[in-house]
């Protein structure tokens, strides 16, 4: 039978969670409730005695100091409306899993198959009488209908003896798992229908390629030998759809692009990825020669570079946009724990050291009716932040760097970038740790979580725009603790040499992980029925492509299998032998002894036809806005400081543990009150060494509306100057690109595809040009190409966005520099020239303008500047350093001053700028490669000598008087604001989020 254990706070104990929910309901929906209280419910569906249930209820399930418990009776009283929210059947319920384990410890007996614990939450609302409103509160705020369900009871509807009726969200399936064959001898229209109805995201050309392959008489002969007919099985079709998906195969980046520029010059680009990304790294590595610090690029789950003689650093950034649009919490949580598996699953394995997060949202204060299926940006903001918080904090990984970027178009699809770095020994048991190789005969072992229907079609779903039929099973919920236990186990297994290779199960599940690993040996024989399932009833193809989380696939040599499995068992990690890696040449899957897939490895991996994409660049006809210089520049500065792209993100940063592992030397928040905005983070991965890893990023989608070439260049420069600002070594630094684009393939749905494809080409050209110019190799990256929303006639495409992440090293972390001014009397220097480059700037945006003169990067001058800055830092001449980005000089001066708690007096007349440049433009231009540095008076000569021949101007000094005082070209006072006032303007907007 099933029990219901209800846990609530004792009378008189404040319900902080309930109060927060009440506040959020008011913020999100505008309903003012009198009170909200909360109760936790455990539905235990297992064969247990009354005594055992009581031991659980009064033991691990409740806290005797503050909580009370009721078993099979209600605790709820004094409410107007009760809303109970629980998970739908099959949705990951982490608390339910922990509760089940707790009961097993008490009884000493394992639960039987089918037994389980399910959790739900009761919200007791007062100040509310109608059910319609309650329904809206449940559906629009408390629950996400994709993964949760709810019950609403008015006070008089609650049975005072039994309480809310028992409901067990157990997965019940009456389907008999069996592979089906699919007839592909059909018309083109029917081929497309098969793709559409099956959520396969395969286009006609690809479907035809499969149709031809399966009709090949030689293929049929080989298939008959293993008992298959001349029709493809659903297992095979799903494996192909997953392997060939945009998400896994990067078809757009591999496509042949026919590009025409604005002057009619044509060129054919055979793969953007190979030409520009791999090409840049190849050329840079060649130029570095003996000094090449790259160890593993593009071929593994993450890139690997040297850290020192004994250790290497692994870095990867992923996006998890589509799932986060549907379920912000689960999507983002899965994003972070998913990229963590990449960080661990590189080479022979690495230990995670830090995370980075960059989110792009629409304003949380957006006051507009949204099209169907879109969640309000505030809910997305809340959910994503909480998801990443739980993913990072619970996993014990500090989140040390990140950004929030706002643009209204991100209402159509939020961007959720999750990055992770890890550390591995250079050598492991006598071999390079960043290399791995599956051997013929190795066993396929899956570890970690079990397989359910979660995340089915995630890979193909994210290869499409968000539409009406977007599947709910595409949403997964991560389980950081199961994953953490698995990682603890894997690092021990690694050091004991118990496996030859491994990789994570992310998009595409086993199909992807086993398929990719099998490329080492040229074949695989996998028994799908041996895979452990969360619940019965999964079809063989579902087992193959499920994206259930927290799983890794390993190649374990036969003579190590027993030791591997028994270590896993002892450490409470599930490990299952699914078959062997072979050299048969086939992706061979069986279900209960019968062959259900027999695809040649070559066709599976190399069969996808290359796309051909037209691209035509035509610059938009844009002009510079005409408006007079505002009278009150104090007010303009305050308005800029309060803009969402500039204002303080402290409320979010504090929710992330940025100090666990005790290695964070430059934290995200710095300065006299621990609240100034850092440019980059410095992290010490080895507690007995002062060598540091430096991490930063650049992202500027605003500039894409003018020219993506310069958007890309600016993103690279921003990443590099943030990196160098804290002291990162400019000669030991690598980059990582994450493209998030809107669909660039010309079609009926995308009539401006040629333009969007040209934008993509231009960004790639800049990526090559500037990485080579800066000498920064790319080590890994990812693209997400379908960030559009389309339902009915409403289409929202995100602005083309590239996150350029930068990782490198500082020899001595004790020489790191923070951005805050340190003491009165220090000299303030501006490095770099200021030009009339306000196109796409925050200042123009504040005036409602775009402009046309987008900032351009002069990499050669910038690199010389960054080198000289490195020297100044090494000589101890730099006391603070801050980069100029959104909002330009005015914002940087203000931030530096209020972070340090002192004033700055600066003269615009000293700034190197075009002779006709207006004062407001000097203040707010976003010209690149500029930095503000403070230097002690006694270091003046030494500092200026280092920058001889470069643009380096002493524009003012730090003052005791806590005021930002900026004089204009004639020496008149332009800005005179107390730093407290500026700080308040900067802190207010997102303080309560």
């Amino acid at each position, binding site marked *: 039978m099933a029990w219901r254990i209800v846990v609530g706070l004792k009378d008189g104990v404040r319900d902080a969670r309930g109060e927060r929910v009440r506040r959020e309901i008011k913020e999100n929906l505008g309903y003012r409730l009198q009170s909200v209280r909360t109760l936790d419910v455990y539905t235990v569906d297992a064969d247990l005695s009354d005594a055992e249930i009581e031991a659980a209820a009064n033991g691990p399930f409740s*806290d005797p100091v*503050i909580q009370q418990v009721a078993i099979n009776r209600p605790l709820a009283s004094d409410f107007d409306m009760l809303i109970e929210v629980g998970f739908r059947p099959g949705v990951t319920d982490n608390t339910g899993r922990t509760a089940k384990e707790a009961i097993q410890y008490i009884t000493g007996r394992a639960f039987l198959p089918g037994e389980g614990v399910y959790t739900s939450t009761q919200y007791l609302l007062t100040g509310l009488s109608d059910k319609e409103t309650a329904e809206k509160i449940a559906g629009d705020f408390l629950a996400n209908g994709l993964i949760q369900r709810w019950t609403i009871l008015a006070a008089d509807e609650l049975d005072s003896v039994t309480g809310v009726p028992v409901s067990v969200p157990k997965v019940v399936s009456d389907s008999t798992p069996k592979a089906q064959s699919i007839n592909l001898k059909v018309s083109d229209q029917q081929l497309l229908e098969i793709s559409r109805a099956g959520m396969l995201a395969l286009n006609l050309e690809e479907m035809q390629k499969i149709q031809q392959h399966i009709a090949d008489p030689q293929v049929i002969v080989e298939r008959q030998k293993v008992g298959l007919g001349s029709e493809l099985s659903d297992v095979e079709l799903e494996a192909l759809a997953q392997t060939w998906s945009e998400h896994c195969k990067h078809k757009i980046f591999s496509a042949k692009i026919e590009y025409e520029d604005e002057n009619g010059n044509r060129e054919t680009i055979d793969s953007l990825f190979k030409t520009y990304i791999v090409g840049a790294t190849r050329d840079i590595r060649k130029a570095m020669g003996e000094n090449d610090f790259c160890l593993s690029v593009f071929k593994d789950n993450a890139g690997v570079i040297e850290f020192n003689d004994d250790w290497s650093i692994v870095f990867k950034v992923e996006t998890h946009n589509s799932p986060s649009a549907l379920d912000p919490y689960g999507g983002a949580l899965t994003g972070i724990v998913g990229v963590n598996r990449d960080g661990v699953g590189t080479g022979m394995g690495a230990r995670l050291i830090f995370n980075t997060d960059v989110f792009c949202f629409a304003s949380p204060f957006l006051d507009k009716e949204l099209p169907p299926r879109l969640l309000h940006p505030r809910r997305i903001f809340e959910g994503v932040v909480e998801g990443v918080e739980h993913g990072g904090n619970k996993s014990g990984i500090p989140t040390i760097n990140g950004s929030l970027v706002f643009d209204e178009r991100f209402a159509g699809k939020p961007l959720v970038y999750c990055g992770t770095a890890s550390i591995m020994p250079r050598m492991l048991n006598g071999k390079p740790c960043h290399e791995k190789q599956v051997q013929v005969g190795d066993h396929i072992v899956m570890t970690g979580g079990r397989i359910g229907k979660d995340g089915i079609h995630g890979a193909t779903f994210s290869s499409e725009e968000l539409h009406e039929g977007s599947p709910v099973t595409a949403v997964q919920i991560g389980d950081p603790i199961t994953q953490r236990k698995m990682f603890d186990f894997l690092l021990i297994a690694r050091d004991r040499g118990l496996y030859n290779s491994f990789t994570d199960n992310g998009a595409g599940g086993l199909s992807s992980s086993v398929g990719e690993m099998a490329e080492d040996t040229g074949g695989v024989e996998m028994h799908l029925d041996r895979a452990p399932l969360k619940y019965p009833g999964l079809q063989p193809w579902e087992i193959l492509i499920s994206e259930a989380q927290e799983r890794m696939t390993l190649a374990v040599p036969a003579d190590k299998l027993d030791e591997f499995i028994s270590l896993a068992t002892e450490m409470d990690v599930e490990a299952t032998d699914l078959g062997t890696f072979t050299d048969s040449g086939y992706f061979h899957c069986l279900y209960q002894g019968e062959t259900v897939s027999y695809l040649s490895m070559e066709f599976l991996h190399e069969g996808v036809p290359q796309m051909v994409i037209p691209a035509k660049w035509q610059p938009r006809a844009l002009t510079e806005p005409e408006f007079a210089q505002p009278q009150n520049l104090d007010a303009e500065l305050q308005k800029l400081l309060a803009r969402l792209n500039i204002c303080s993100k402290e409320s979010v*940063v504090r929710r992330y543990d940025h100090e666990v*592992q*005790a290695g964070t030397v430059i934290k995200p928040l710095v300065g006299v009150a621990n609240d100034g905005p850092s440019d980059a983070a410095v992290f010490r991965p080895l*507690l007995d060494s002062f060598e540091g890893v430096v991490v930063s990023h650049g992202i500027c989608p605003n500039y894409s509306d003018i020219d993506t070439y310069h958007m890309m260049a600016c993103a690279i420069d921003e990443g590099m100057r943030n990196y160098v600002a804290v002291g990162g070594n400019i000669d030991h630094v690598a980059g990582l690109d994450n493209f998030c684009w809107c669909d660039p393939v010309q079609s009926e749905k995308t009539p401006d595809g040629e333009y969007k494809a040209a934008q993509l080409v231009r960004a790639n050209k800049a990526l090559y040009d500037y990485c080579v110019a800066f000498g920064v190799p790319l080590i890994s990256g990812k693209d997400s190409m379908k960030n559009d929303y389309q339902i009915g006639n409403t289409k929202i495409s995100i602005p083309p966005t590239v996150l350029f992440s930068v990782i490198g090293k500082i020899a001595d972390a004790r020489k790191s520099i923070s951005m805050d001014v340190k003491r009165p009397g220090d000299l303030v220097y501006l490095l770099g020239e200021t030009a009339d480059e306000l196109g796409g700037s925050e200042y123009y945006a504040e005036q409602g303008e775009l402009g046309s003169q987008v900032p351009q990067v002069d990499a050669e001058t910038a690199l010389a500047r960054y080198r000289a800055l490195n020297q100044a830092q090494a000589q101890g001449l730099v006391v603070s350093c801050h980069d100029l980005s959104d909002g330009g000089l005015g914002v940087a001066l203000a931030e530096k001053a209020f972070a340090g708690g002192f004033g700055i007096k600066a003269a615009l007349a000293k700034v190197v700028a075009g002779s006709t440049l207006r004062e407001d433009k000097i203040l707010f231009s976003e010209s690149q490669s500029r930095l503000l540095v403070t230097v002690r008076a006694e270091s003046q000569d030494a500092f200026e000598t280092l920058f001889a021949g470069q643009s380096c101007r002493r524009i003012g000094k730090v003052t005791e008087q806590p005021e930002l005082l900026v004089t204009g070209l004639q020496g008149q006072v332009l800005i005179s604001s107390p730093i407290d006032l500026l700080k308040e303007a900067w802190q207010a907007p997102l303080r309560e989020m």
Partner: protein
Amino acid sequence: MMSKTVKTIVIAGNGTNCEREVAHACKLAGAEVADIVHVAELLAGRVKLADYHFLNLAGGFLDGDDLGSAKAGANRLLHAPVVGSEQTLADQIKQFVAAGKLVMGVCNGFQLMVKMGLLPAFAGSAKQNCTLTHNQGGRFEDRWSWLKVDPESPCVFTRGLERLYLPVRHGEGQFVTDNTATLKQLEAMHLSVVKYADSDLNPTMEYPDNPNGSVASIAGICDPTGRLFGLMPHPEAYVHYTHHPRWTREELPEEGMGLWLYQNAIRFIREELLK
């Protein structure tokens, strides 16, 4: 017989996160041995608590804190049997304590000690009479806090100390007692060792100096012997000046304030347990 080396152990696994830096702090403070031991090793009976002097329960999220902070973790220690014995790990910890040894729990480790009834353990009672619950703000927060040390406390870890500046990083750090009598007894016996304070070192209930709304500003407590100590702030996160959030702008000594707690522990072991 144990040799005259100080042996410290940090239990890891099932969601602990700070074991490496805690072991590092023990080493820096002079412990000859600072072993990070997975709880599976202890449950398998291969490693015995009795072989150590100083047990560290590190911060983290045991079992995800899914049933409330450290609840499922406490349940495991109370019920999971150690292979080859009739005992649980909780039994072994009791013997460890009875042998006059030291235990420090930080953050999740403090939550674990309180929920197992190891703290405050008035007169040796294992009944839980305090707890740590959700911050008043309802959210996880990472921020640095000033702590005022009670000079009259029997706590061996804080001997000679007046103040500490350490980071808190938790969502469930609000200390509460079951009733005012418990609180009064804690205060009367000087077991409320460290209190959240403003920068002038006055204990405070004001956010953010008191980051979670803890009753009587209590950030950490010890048992009447002073050998068992738990606190929410993280001493292992400030053992070197580069851990301090303002090290780039303040003149600070090489050693961080958090290290003092570990040094006191090691000194006590040398002077009292190894003499």
